[in-house]
Structures are given as structure tokens and as C-alpha cells.
């Protein structure tokens, strides 16, 4: 009796195993999955590495109002503002962020900066692979955070004269 009961218990347990064997996998197969995200999938609301958005003309939305830096509880945003000129137009308003750094050593991904932003310039992307051997790599500059140029303007669209002279900066995908 005792043996039979044990066999039944094992059979019951194994039945679950064999049943699941033939079902599709639901766990993420990160980092060996398919696609650029190597199997990772996100909810829309996921708060990853920030993205600085551009408007429909490809200009930066950020006007360097410092509200994100003021809202930041971990004090990880550093901004230097500058004035747009006719020759050098970076953002849609009178001023733009000449320097925009986020220190991911300190960032707690709380999303307050996104809520504070009056121009919807800063948003959370889905970048999450931040690990590095050197902490100074964790201070992301504006060039690393900026969204790519909108596709309808063409990959080689030039936004201001400084870029013609200096060559367009390489677009770095967020999280890389």
C-alpha cells in the first residue's frame, strides 16, 4: 500500500512535468532569446534608461528648465543651459540644454523627472543593461540619452550649422 501510494504520488508529480514539457515556454529566455533585446520583453510603463525626446522637426524638446533636476530625489541630473541662436538652433524654445548628464550611479528610476517635465522631453525608455566595470561610464551624457532623429527627416538631416562644420554626432542607442 505504502509503495503504491508513493508510485501514485510520483506519477502525479511527473504528469505535471510531462504536460508542461509540450507547452510553449512562457519565461523570458534572456539573454539568449531572439531579436535585438535578446528575448527581454517590457511593459510599456517600464522605467528604464531615460530618453530625451525630439519634436516633429527633429529639434530637442528639452528647454533646460531644471525642473527634472529639482524634482530628482537622488540629485543625479546635471544641466547646463545655453541660448539658442538663429545659426545654432538645438531646441524649439529660447534655451536648450548644452550639457545634460544623468548619473546612473545615483538614479533610482522613480520617474519624478518624467512627471516634472513641462515639455515631455524626458521619458523613460526600456534600456536596462547598465552594468559596467567602470562607474564613470554610468554618467550618461546628452548624446547618449537623446532619441534618434525622426525617420521622416532622413538619417542625414542636419539641424544646425555647427553640425555641418563639426560633423553630426554618432547616434547612440539608449542603454548601449
Amino acid at each position, binding site marked *: 500500500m505504502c509503495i503504491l501510494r508513493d508510485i501514485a504520488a510520483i506519477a502525479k508529480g511527473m504528469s505535471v512535468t510531462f504536460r508542461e514539457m509540450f507547452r510553449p515556454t512562457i519565461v523570458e529566455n534572456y539573454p539568449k532569446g531572439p531579436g535585438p533585446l535578446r528575448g527581454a520583453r517590457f511593459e510599456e510603463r517600464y522605467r528604464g534608461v531615460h530618453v530625451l525626446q525630439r519634436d516633429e522637426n527633429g529639434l530637442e524638446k528639452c528647454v533646460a528648465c531644471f525642473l527634472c533636476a*529639482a524634482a530628482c530625489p537622488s540629485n543625479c541630473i546635471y544641466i547646463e543651459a545655453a541660448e539658442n541662436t538663429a545659426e545654432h538652433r538645438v531646441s524649439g524654445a529660447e534655451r536648450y540644454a548644452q550639457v545634460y548628464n544623468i548619473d546612473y550611479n545615483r538614479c533610482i528610476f522613480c520617474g519624478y523627472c518624467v512627471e516634472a517635465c513641462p515639455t515631455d522631453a524626458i521619458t523613460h525608455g526600456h534600456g536596462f543593461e547598465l552594468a559596467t566595470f567602470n562607474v564613470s561610464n554610468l554618467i550618461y551624457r546628452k548624446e547618449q540619452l537623446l532619441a534618434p532623429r525622426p525617420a521622416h527627416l532622413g538619417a542625414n538631416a542636419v539641424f544646425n550649422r555647427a553640425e555641418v562644420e563639426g560633423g553630426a554626432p554618432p547616434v547612440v542607442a539608449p542603454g548601449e
Partner: protein
Amino acid sequence: MADVNITLDGKKLTAPAGTLLIEACKNAGIEVPSFCYYPGFSLQGACRMCLVKIEKVPKLQTACTTVIGEGMIVTTDSPEIHQARKSMVELLLGNHPLDCPVCDAGGECELQDMTFAYGAAESKYIDIKNHREEQQWSPVVYFDRPRCILCYRCVRVCGEGMDVWALGIQNRGVASVIAPNKEDHLECEECGMCIDICPVGALTSGAYRYKTRPWEMKHIDTTCTHCGDGCRTTLGVRRADTGIEIVRGDNRDKSGINGDFLCIKGRYAFDFVDNEQRIKQPLIRKDGRLTPSSWEEAFELIGRRFAEICGREGGRAIGVIGSSKTSNEENYLLQKFARVVLGTNNIDHHRTGDFPAFARALAGKLDATASMRDVFKAPAMLVIGNDPTNQHPLLAWQIRNNVRLHRSRLYVINSQPIKLRRQATAFAHIPAGSEAKLVALLAGDDSVLDVLVSENTPREALLSLRDRLRGEQNLVIIFGAELRGEEMARLVKVGSAVSGAKFVCLGDYANSRGAADMGLYPDLLPGYLPVTQGKTFREEWGGLPDAPGLTIPQMVDAAKAGQLKALYVVGANPVARFNIDPFAFAKSFVVMQDMFLTETALIADVVLPGANAYEKSGTFTNTCGDLQLLRKAGEVTGTKPDFEIIVRIAERMGFDVRKLVPFGGGMWADMGQSRGAQSGEADRHSVWLEAHGLETKLSPFDPMAILDEIQRLVPGYHVSRRTLLSGTDQHTRIGGPGILHNPELIVPANDDLFTSGTLGRYSRALNSVLENQRRKPVETEVAAD
């Protein structure tokens, strides 16, 4: 005036009759909001924010234009009032662009505060806002018309406060607009008062434009380093790659001697500190060329050469030239260094006022000097010589507003038709250089009348001026460098006949008075004590050279004759200022410490990068004798404060530093001011030690370490240290016997509103204003005058 009983929000109060209701509320601790009301200016009643309910009056009344009356019962907050104010804010926001994220006033905007307080978050007005492009009115003034809420504060401060009248109103009603005096630009004193007083971001500063936001900066209150008036200025600082950057200057807390006031130099001309020409590394002349070197190498060389020369030829072969822009502590230390370490009295500085003669004239008189605050309160003022509007802007502001607000009488005697004559009860236009004759006239000598009388100033006018002055009481007498030596003594004698008379002797640079008080003279010790009478100092310092040393021209002669082997110049530019032949010092070893490669650097063998007054702690004495604190605001990597440099040179010469700077425990310590804005940890540590009665350590580089000695030994400087450290100005009386000097040694700086000696040449803001003025065609009609 008699007191009046009123009831404010149920509280029974008494206030002097004639008080405005809004002021009575403020004194009772009740806040009544307002935009257009500003204490000290005429009433406007434009913004309607201060509406309150007064019993038995059918409609709400404006508290800013209502004078309290007996038995008045006032309610300052009720649903009705709240609704009225909310509607006012809504109307103001009707055409306000709401570009707060971009606006420089964002974060310190009164309209933002009111919108928060009265919650007019939604608007009934759906019309499209009337947009106008922003205008640049001058290099430092921008005007954004849609942001303007028409409170007229700028118009009043410019006209009533500054007496410039460069801003006005065009059109009427809803079409009203603030307009500059020259159609599309301003021609004015560029003081920036309109920007400071603007409750919104309609008038913004060109220097601070889009740089940062108010809450991102640390605000350090210190003393301005330009003219001799010693305005309190609050510097907004932030961290930068090269240390701590100064981003903005204003007078945020309005608590200093200057109250609301700052001129263009205090507000914008801090920008010489990060001029690209600033020296950031010691330079040593090698093969005829100034080459960058290390501090160690420079100190080693200077220490060795100074010790060598002192040992071989004695201290008289070394000359020292001090500065009128370094702090009292540095000046005291420098003269102590010269007298004790080098053993010479060859120390001098650029003199801009005859303070030794002033001390001599006032010897034995108590309370005979006026502070900057006294000038604002005096019932009568006499200004002889100088042009305060250009050379002493704060003094002019005090005089103007004293006349305007207190109806005091102003007597102006000048060889030029200076602007202050417009406030004057009587103005005597005398021929140039006849100030001394005028003093003789005031003394009762009628024989000089012939010289003084001119077309503009008839004989009777001069005589009636004299009679009126004789009839005054508590007169404040202000005089410039036109009066020196015996003539000054004579004026003081004449003036002292007026009961309660007080005097102000004008010096031109930020610490001209302090340099004089601290004894940067070849024949005077600190406190105007002749070197021959220096018993206390001899005992304190253990020895002192007896013979008076060389003045600057004598140093030049001695160098030409080959007797002066070394020259040590601290923060001065004698080559340009005294037009010295650069080859005079060809054979001398010249050490210079300054911020820039000035003309003097041409002859220097070693140039050390010094720090300016915004980058160190210490004290300044303004031209009236008000002692004020300097707090460290900025920092430029690579430079050192002059105090530290002097101590290090003494140490390298093999001198026991403890004898120079009495550092260590047991004294009032620096509470972090000298370590700068960003070092919170060190400050808290020091405060904690202080709070627990433990010993705080002073380093030999801490200026506070020598302040004790100054307060002990220099007459007039026994002021409360606690009050001083809290940032409040304190008046020092001028002490000591004083001496008569050769008046030729005094060279007035002759700066105007837009120049500031060597510093001004390196200020972008001042240069841009000057350049802008040069570009304009010369017009016969001058707006500001």
C-alpha cells in the same frame, strides 16, 4: 505722530497715524499680497491684489493706498477677498505667456507665487495671447513685453530711486507698455535695478540670461570689490570644472547697507573672475620669458632671494607695494610681513584719499565719522567735490533717497555740474581747484569771494549758502580727494562748529580705507600711528624698524640708483597707475601677485596667481569706515588667496610663521566661510565643535586667525565679532594721531560707473556696455542727466 487704534482680522492693534494699511498689516504679521506696492516708492494702486474689506465701506479697498484711521475694522482674508484676488491673477494671466520653464524669473517669480496661493489654475479667457518678440534694450537689459504685468515698479525705481527716468509708459489702458527712453534701447546708468525689482520675468538680465535657475545656485552674501562704498552683494554660485563659478550678482536679502541698491559693477562686473586671461599658474621669468612653473618652485625662489637680500643688505633694499582691493587681514599681514619678516618700512599703496590727515583732523573727536546708514538719515548733507553718482553710486543713492523720503537738505559744492545738484537745496558751482578757497569762505574769510564768484554762482548765493550751513544741525559733510592735508583739517574745524556734524572722507577703491587703516604707509603703523611711536606694536611683534621707509616714487628712485634690490607687489598695478619707467626696476628682483598679466607683469620676475575678494574670506572697510565681512563665493583652481601666499613666502624665508599669524585654538573660528560654499561637511564639523565648546583649529592660512590681533591693536576696530560674523556692517571710528603727507601722493582713481581700475578692463559686462555706448552717435540731449 499719535497712535491710531485699528482692528485687523479681529486683532486690536495700534499703529502710528499716517501708516499705510498694507504696512500696518505687515507689521502685524499679516501678509497682504501686492505687485505694484513697493516700500519707499510712490503709490500706484495698479495691480489690485491688496484688496481688503474695510467695515462700512461698500467695496473692497486697496490696502496699499489706504491710510489707517481711528477705529478702522479690516478683514484681510475672506471668501470674497480670495475670489477677488483670484480674479485679479486670472486677469494678469490673461496675456501672460506661461513660458515659466524658459523664463529666467521662474522659481523666484511673484506671479508664480500668487498663482499658487490663489489657485487661478484655469482661465475663462480663450482668446489667443498677444505675442511680441523679446527686445534687447541694452547689453544687460532684456524686455519681454507679454510677461509684463504693468506694476510700474521699474518706472518708479528708475525715476524716483535712481533719478534716471529712462523708463516710461506708452499708451493707455490695456495697451499700456513699458518703454525705454530711446525708442528701442535704453540710455541709462545700467544699474539693473529695474530687473531686480521686476516681480515677473519681463525685465531680465543679459549677464545671467538662461544660465541656470535660482534654486540651482548657492547664494553667498559678500561685499562688492569695486568702488569704496562696500555694497552687500549676494553672489549666486555653482560648481564648475575649474572650481566654483559665479553666475549672478544681486542683493537678494536686501539687508546690507545698500538695501535695494546695487550699481552695474556690483550686479554684473563679477565676471572678471573667469576672464580667459586670468593667470592660473605661477610664472617665473627664465631667459627673459615668463614661463609656467610650480608653486613650490616659485616659493623656493622668492624665499631664497628675499632671505639673501635681507641678509646681505638688510630690509631697506626691499620695497613692498600693497593693494586697496585686498582684505584688511591681508593688508595687516602684508605690513607686518614687511616690518617684521623683511624688517623694512618700505611699504606703500595707491592712495586715493588723505586718510592720515583725516585721522589727524579728527583726533580726539568721538562719533565724528558718519556711516553709510547715517547718510540716509541725516537731516542735512554737504557734498564738496567728487561726483558721487559716478564714483560712489551707493552714496549718491543714500543722498538722493534721503532727500526724497526724509526731505533733508542737500548742499552741493562742485567745480562740475554734477547730477546730484538736481536734489540739492543749494548748489555752488565753483571754479576748478578752488575747493580750498571755499573752505576758507566757510571759515569766514570773505576775501576769497572774488575767486569763487562766477556767472552761475553769484556772491549772494555763496554767502547765503554759508549762512544756511551755519544754521544746520547734525550735518553730514562728505568730501572727495580735492581736499587734503591742511585744507581738510580746516574743513573739519569749520564743520565741527555745527553741532553733531559728522564727516565722510571719500576713497576710491573697495578697501582704500582699510588699506590706510591697516598701515600700508612707510611712516604709519596700523591705526595711523607714526612708526616712531609704535611702542605697542614693538612689544607685540618683538622689534620694529624705526626710520620711516620709502614711498612709491622714492622706491622708483632708489631702484634707479641701484639701492632697491627687490620689489614685492601685492594686487596692485603701480607701473600703469604711476606711469613708472619700466626700466627703473631692471636690476631689481620683482615679485608680483595678481589675477592678470598687467603692465606691472612686464617688469616682474615672478608672477603669482592671486585670488580676488570674491574668492576669499576676510573683512573690508568701506570709505565711511563700515566694517563688513567678505565670504568666499567663487574659486578658480590654481590660484591662492594673497593671505596664504604671504604666509608661505615668510615660511620659505625661514621665518617662524607663528610669530606672523597667531593661529591655533582658543579663538573665534571661521565657521566655514573661508572654505567655500560647497564644503558642507567641514562647516558642520566646525559648527559642532563650536556648539560643544571644543577648540576649533585655525590654520595659518585662515584670515580669521589675525583678525583678533587687528581688533586688539587697531583703534576703532573693537567691534562685536558676533555681529560681524552674522554679516552685519559695523561702523569703525578712525583712530590714531595721523600725520600730514605730501598731497601729491594721492592719485584719485577717477573711475566712473562703467570703469573699475584694472578689474574693469577684464569684465565682459562693463566692456560690452562701454562698447555699446561708443557705437551710438553722440547726441546733444543726454537721457540720464
